[in-house]
């Protein structure tokens, strides 16, 4: 457990944030700020030993011998949220941090590079709220007179008859 990787998602939002605007995105309102990160341990810098499980629906928090620290996996949660909520993703920044000089217990402070390595990938984004649907022109129905309603019913009846005749 001490040596394991960890996949974490943090989302922040507030009313003040929603009152802000992002530069060059004047027409959209920020919906939230998200930081997703995953880390894992690798043998010889290439072979994944244990990583955080990017599948958030799984009950098990780790995966073995599968590189889930890659950008594709870390980005999953971001894309999923944007798709579900119809939000736009802007200001996406990614940071990869690899630690190759790890001092293992019993080596008396001496560390050999690239034996056991720790990789960490982080992506932070800002979500913009879905665009409001374009306003449709509102048709205001005037209150029809009783006589008009009767006339409309008559016309409707006539049209039905006409259609029936055509069908026959």
């Amino acid at each position: 457990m001490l040596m394991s990787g960890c996949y974490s998602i943090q989302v922040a939002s507030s009313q003040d944030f929603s009152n802000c605007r992002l530069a060059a995105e004047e027409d959209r309102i920020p919906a939230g700020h998200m930081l997703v990160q995953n880390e894992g341990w690798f043998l010889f810098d290439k072979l994944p030993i244990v990583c955080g499980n990017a599948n958030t629906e799984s009950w098990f928090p780790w995966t073995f011998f599968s590189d889930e620290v890659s950008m594709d996996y870390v980005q999953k949660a971001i894309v999923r949220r944007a798709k579900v909520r119809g939000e736009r993703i802007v200001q996406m920044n990614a940071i990869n941090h690899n630690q190759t000089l790890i001092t293992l217990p019993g080596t008396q402070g001496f560390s050999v590079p690239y034996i056991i390595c720790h990789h960490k990938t982080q992506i932070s984004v800002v979500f913009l709220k879905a665009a409001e649907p374009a306003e449709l022109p509102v048709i205001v129905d005037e209150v029809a007179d009783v006589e008009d309603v009767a006339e409309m019913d008559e016309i409707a009846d006539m049209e039905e008859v006409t259609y029936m005749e055509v069908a026959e």
Partner: protein
Amino acid sequence: MKKLAFALSLMAFAGCMTSEISRTTNGVEGDGPESHLLTVEVENVGWYMFDYIPLLCGDPQGVNKVSSVMFKNTLTLQNNLDELMRIAQREGSYTLGSMMSYETSESVWVFFVSRHAYHTSATLMRKR
């Protein structure tokens, strides 16, 4: 003397939430219709045991005051964003640019004691 050493070591290990503001834009204009007002970096530091148990974390209510809270995890993106919004409101800026967050961590004896820090930075802008 021992008490002073203890206090100093406690201070050195304490968590702290800080915000740093840079106002030196030197007349460089931003992209689009906004101009740079300032750059902000919010940092919250915490010390953990076994990477999970919070020992000392920065106090969001005491930013830049070397104020810590014990056994409570305050290293959240929400606390950083709230502090950023407080600064934006104080400075009268409602346009953000280049916003990003990341975490740094280092540890002693693998994960026995580890130090984590959450960073959030953004440029605050205003209309020209």
